[in-house]
Every structure is written in structure tokens, then in C-alpha cells.
């Protein structure tokens, strides 16, 4: 397997005035070139921290990278000096943020903003940059690109803005795209369009996409493989089909049950226990206080990741017990 992108034993902490807290604790995560990989978890699970850590954009303090490595094309991003990181951002790894309005500069037209990116990164004339910018806007399937070029961000709709953000992210030929909940706060109809666009671009340009979401439904629509993140740890990972068909971790099940089903079906009753912060400080499983299946062992020892089948890994003490593990019992009721 060509290891295009690999995270190894990454631990990130946050300094607060109550002491240092671990927010990210990932043993391994591998992305293959050209695939779309989904990260799913609720807010506060560490999804955005992960994205910002990869790009080394996490402000420090308060954050501290305690240990680990992020290998990209065989080179460790965490060891690179800032000057080299600056060359990697945009040209190799790019990111789409949640809120397109605050990503775009309100005082320049969107065309100007794309042109600037080109001129900052390539030695080309303004004329050429304009032409390329026009091409980028056409690439993200915005009709009437010439007209759009001259508009300010506030004159565009949420969906159009997010398309511009994607155009900017890809304008320097990035081959690795991090999409951090790119459709949050967008209408469902617009969301569908953005998802399609990302999938198409991925197919056409062969970029690798790390897609972050809180909804397994979104991820199942555009990703091949997925990792479920809870309180900074990956609790279950595998191909989307494996995880959706045979979810082994109670947290994955809760996430699955939380999605409102379409057309007449009713939502399944979800585990309504509210998340507790102290889970992070436990020695054991970080899902302990919310878990319906917990046992004594879960409190005292951290579950290690075990292989279920194929590429399907789960970190849960209960997942390997007896004949029919995980699944079944949860989905009803």
C-alpha cells in the first residue's frame, strides 16, 4: 500500500488554566493517494484540531503538539520549519473552512482574491492570472463566471461563496484537500450541490480529500473510507460499507441512529446522555460515561484497536466478546 499520508501516534494537548488537556490522540491514520476519507464525530471531538494540526495552523499557545508525526509524501510535516510549511500550504495541502464568509476577505471582489492567490504563487502577468481565475470559477461550476469575478463576497449566496472558497483552495494545484464541514449552515439543496462538486473535482483532478463532518449520512455519500472520532480518539475505522453494515462501536451506532431517516421512517431513539468532559481524564475508554454497554474494564483500561474483518478496525472492549458482537441490540427501540 502506498502510504501517501500517514499520521502516527499524534498527541495534541491544550493548555487551559485548569491544566493541560489532551484533545487529540491518534495512533495511526493512513490516506491513500486520490481517495476521499471521512472523519466523523460530534462537535468537540477534535476534528478541526486535527485539520489545523496537519496544516500546522493551530495557534500555540494554547495548543501543544506532544508527540507523533504526520508523514506526507514521506516527509514529516511536524518537523518542517515554518518557511517550508508556507510553501506546502496551498500548493500541496489546502483547506476549506466551515464558514465561507469569514474565509473570504470582504473588501475585495472574489475575482481579485483568486487573482492574488495566483500572482502570489506563480510568476505570471495580471492578464494571465485573470484568465486562470476565470477558469477556476468555471471549474467550480458557477454560471456566468465573468460576472461573478466582479462581485464582493456579501453579494453572493452561501453556496456560491463556498464554491469560490473551493476554487481558491485548488487554485495553486493542491493535491490534498481538507474539507472541514464545508456544508455546515448551508441549505440541504445547496449542500447537495457542494458535495457533488467536491466528488467531481476529486474524480477529475485526482486530489486526495479529507472530509470532516458530523453526519455519517454525508460521509457515506462521498467517501470510500471513514474514521469515527470520539473525544480525540479514533474508535472505529474502515470502509464506509463495512462500518455502516456492521457498526461495532456503541458510539458509531449512536451516530447512525441520530440521522433522521428519509420518507416516512422515524428517527431511532438515541442515547440521550449528555457528553461529559471528564471522560478525557479517565484512564479507560473515553466513551465510558455515555456508553450503554460499559463494564468495569472500560473504566480502567483503554481499549486498543482490533481488526474485525478486511480493513475494519474497532477500539472497544465489547466488540470482540462472544458470538454476536456490537450491533444488533442497539438498532431496535
Amino acid at each position: 500500500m502506498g502510504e501517501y499520508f500517514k499520521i502516527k501516534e499524534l498527541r495534541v494537548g491544550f493548555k487551559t488554566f485548569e491544566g493541560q488537556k489532551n484533545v487529540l490522540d491518534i495512533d495511526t491514520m493512513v490516506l491513500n493517494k486520490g481517495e476521499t476519507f471521512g472523519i466523523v464525530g460530534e462537535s468537540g471531538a477534535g476534528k478541526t484540531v486535527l485539520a489545523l494540526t496537519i496544516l500546522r495552523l493551530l495557534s500555540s499557545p494554547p495548543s501543544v503538539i506532544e508527540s507523533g508525526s504526520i508523514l506526507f509524501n514521506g516527509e514529516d510535516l511536524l518537523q518542517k520549519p515554518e518557511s517550508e510549511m508556507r510553501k506546502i500550504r496551498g500548493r500541496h495541502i489546502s483547506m476549506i473552512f466551515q464558514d465561507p464568509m469569514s474565509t473570504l476577505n470582504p473588501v475585495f471582489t472574489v475575482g481579485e482574491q483568486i487573482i492574488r492567490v495566483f500572482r502570489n504563487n506563480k510568476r505570471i502577468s495580471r492578464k494571465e492570472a485573470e484568465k486562470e481565475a476565470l477558469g477556476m470559477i468555471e471549474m467550480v461550476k458557477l454560471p456566468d463566471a465573468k460576472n461573478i469575478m466582479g462581485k464582493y463576497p456579501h453579494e453572493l449566496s452561501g453556496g456560491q461563496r463556498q464554491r469560490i472558497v473551493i476554487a481558491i483552495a485548488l487554485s495553486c494545484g493542491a493535491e490534498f484537500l481538507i474539507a472541514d464541514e464545508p456544508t455546515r449552515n448551508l441549505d440541504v439543496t445547496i449542500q447537495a450541490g457542494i458535495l457533488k462538486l467536491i466528488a467531481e473535482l476529486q474524480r477529475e483532478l485526482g486530489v486526495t480529500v479529507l472530509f470532516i463532518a458530523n453526519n455519517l449520512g454525508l460521509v457515506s455519500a462521498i467517501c470510500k473510507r471513514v474514521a469515527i472520532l470520539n473525544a480525540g480518539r479514533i474508535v472505529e475505522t474502515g470502509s464506509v460499507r463495512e462500518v455502516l453494515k456492521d457498526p461495532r462501536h456503541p458510539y458509531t451506532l449512536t451516530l447512525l441512529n441520530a440521522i433522521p431517516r428519509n420518507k416516512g421512517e422515524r428517527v431511532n431513539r438515541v442515547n440521550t446522555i449528555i457528553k461529559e468532559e471528564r471522560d478525557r481524564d479517565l484512564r479507560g475508554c473515553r466513551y465510558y460515561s455515555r456508553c450503554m454497554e460499559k463494564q468495569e474494564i472500560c473504566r480502567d483500561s483503554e481499549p486498543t484497536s482490533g481488526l474485525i474483518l478486511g480493513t475494519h478496525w474497532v477500539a472497544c472492549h465489547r466488540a470482540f466478546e462472544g458470538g454476536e458482537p456490537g450491533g444488533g441490540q442497539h438498532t431496535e427501540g
Partner: protein
Amino acid sequence: MADSILKVKDLKKYFPVRGGFFSKPVAWVKAVDGVTFEMEQGEVLGLVGESGCGKTTLVNVLLKLEEPTSGEVHFDGLDLFNMDKKSLRKTRKNLQIVFQDPFWSLNPRLLVRDIVGEPIKVHANCSGEQLVKKVGDLLEMVGLPRNGVFKYPHEFSGGERQRIAIARALALSPKLVVLDEPTSSIDVLSQAQILELLKDLKQSLGLTYILISHDLSVVNYMADRIAVMYLGKMVEYGPADDVFGRTAHPYTKALFAAIPTLDTEGIDSIATIEGSVPSAINPPSGCRFHTRCPMAKEICRQKEPVMVDLGGGHRAACHFIGKDAKSAC
């Protein structure tokens, strides 16, 4: 037959677009353009549409946060728009709202006690220990620990903040609660929990809800009746089962198709509607949806469709209802 708690008749709200030297209105944004519906005690009305369709304006007018341009609203038998200040204040007790964004709907400088306790302080003489106890009871009711009374909003997560907002709305035991996109800015897990909570509360307290959302799957879960809005107009209205089972308007169909579900195999099974909602300043002629409608014909550009009754209170406004079965899919 149950009592009707809310009657809305031909409600309009236009915003002036001012220009010129004397800032005279040069155009009108027709945010809500003739909406009529009725609600019964204890039911849930789901109001669906994309952003910019006038949902939020409709709510602001219903709650008298903005003055209507024309139309009538009767709430609980009282004419909401012809009411003196005193009875309006009393009526407000029965008419509450939960806002979309739990990060801005709670005053960040106040303790939860004062946020949830505010309606109690305003409408009932209650303070000190008594207030703390009442707020504690309300927090417990929405599934938060009692000790949350003495905390600031920022100490809670998005879902928990939305619970606080719900507690505030329920503090005066209202009859009608408007839920303005209550789950659109929190994650799916919290969303499921909040919907669950709202459903339980409705049952135990006998509440009536207007649930606003752009996500049909959320509305599907809660609503007894559904109203779909597009550019200030209602395009489809009826009992939830009819709107889901026998979807009549192409816009409603498009909203359904856009939702990714777990059964979705690959991106291609999600459908989108092209383009975005046109400006409400100069809405398209004829049927307002014709610019994005996959089945638009010449007639749609020229003539505005009227609401057609499909039986059982199910109505929709489209020229092709029942006429052209072939293109209707």
C-alpha cells in the same frame, strides 16, 4: 374538533428598499407574500424552505417583533395586530420562540439563572431562592443538571445551550412555541437529542409547535402538518403523511431528493436543484419557482398557479398537478 389556536390569513410583509435623495422606497422586498394557514391546539406545523424564502420573517411578524404590512393573525381567539400594549404583554407569555443559533440567542454576560429566569422575573414577581428553584426545575425538565443554574452559557456545548433556550421558552408555560431552525447549527447527535426532547416535552406539556427548518428530514420526524415555502409564498401545504407520501410540488420533491441518507450509494443518487433562490425584490413572473423548476413550461412563466386542493387538506400550487403525470416525475 379541536380548537384552532392560530389562524393566519393572507399575511404580507414587505420591506422597503430605500434609495434616492429623500430615501423614498424605490422597491419592495416581498418577504412574506400572502400566507394563509391554520393550526390546531397540540399539533406540530413544519415550515420548510431554503434560506431567503421568508420563513424567519413570517415568524418575526407572528411574534410581533416586526409589524406586518397587511393580513390578519388570530392567536387563541385574539386579534394579534389590534391589541393594546397590556394585552400584548400578556399574550407574549403564551407565544414563545427558540432561536436558530444557540451561540447568539443567550446573552453571554448573564448567568443561566438570569437567562432562564428573565421571563419569570418580567411576568411574575419572583426572585431569590424561589427563582433559583424554578430555574433549576426548568433545567431538569430539559435534561440539564440543576447546578447549571450558576453557570455562564459559554460553559455549555451547542446542544446544551439549545436546551437552555428551550427552558427559557418554556418558563412561562406557553401555549405555542415557535422553533426557528432549532437544530441547524448543532451536530447530528445533539440534533437527535434535541428533537427527542422536544417531542417528549410536547407530549407532557401539551404544547403546540411551529417548527421551521430547511431540512425536510427534521420536519418529517416532528411534524403533523407541513407547509413548504418558496420566495414568500406557500407552495405546498397539508398533513405530513400526504406531503411525504404524495408529494405534489416539484420544489418539495427537490428538497427531498437533496438529503443524503445512509442508503445513499455514492454521490450520484443525490439530486440538486440548479441555481439559488432568486431575489425577492423582483420575483420571477408567473410561478416563482419556474427559474429552477425541471418541468417548467411556457405557462409557468406567464401565469401564477393557484393552490389546488388535493383532498384531506392537502394543497399545492403547481400548474401540472394531476394534469401531466408523465413529466411529474
